[in-house]
């Protein structure tokens, strides 16, 4: 299996990445997933992250099969 990584909105456009599949080896936290998926890109202020569609912080553990998402502050409603 893999870890699936998604980017949304301005972040998706800025990084030019919509979705990525990563091999889980060595990816123990959300932070590690960010570093790998974006090639150590600088994190914008107020960056949010979710694992399996729940908000988490960057120290949150990830495991094989997880869906990890990164996105800017939400502006719905």
């Amino acid at each position: 299996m893999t870890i699936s990584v998604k980017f949304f909105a301005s972040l998706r456009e800025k990084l030019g990445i919509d979705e990525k599949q990563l091999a889980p080896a060595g990816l123990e936290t959300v932070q590690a997933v960010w570093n790998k998926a974006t090639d150590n890109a600088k994190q914008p202020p107020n960056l949010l992250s979710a694992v399996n569609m729940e908000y988490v912080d960057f120290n949150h553990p990830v495991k094989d099969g997880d869906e990890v998402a990164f996105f800017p502050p939400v502006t719905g409603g």
Partner: protein
Amino acid sequence: MDKRVIVTDTIFDPLQEVQRFQNAMQAKGQFGACVTFVGTMRDFNENTDVQKMTLEHYPGMTEKHLSQIIDEAKNKWDILDAFIVHRVGDFKPGDPIVLVATWSAHRAEAYEANRYLIEELKSRAPFWKKETLKEGTRWVEHNTLA
């Protein structure tokens, strides 16, 4: 029971949606109060540059969190039912963006739960607004305060 959360990329009629949901409610005859909130895209009076608005969302996570918010409201207040419709995709001024409807036996609960739902939706549901200007596009960075 009808679906309590709808995310749609086509224009919707909020009051007709309320009526449709209400007609299918099991709790009919028990509710004394129904409160609805409709958020509409305003004209760009101050900013005539804006030609279009687009709403991106995170499919799956959006519906999950809207359902969670409704569950929380049901735990906090004695409401009989709640219903949320949210538009995504391209829309134009005057289009409804969001509908929140709440039903309860007495009015205080319907008002308070309704307000809770829209505030939580605005702060937690993964939607992002983008404006199309003459010169290109621009992401809305912060939600307007209430």
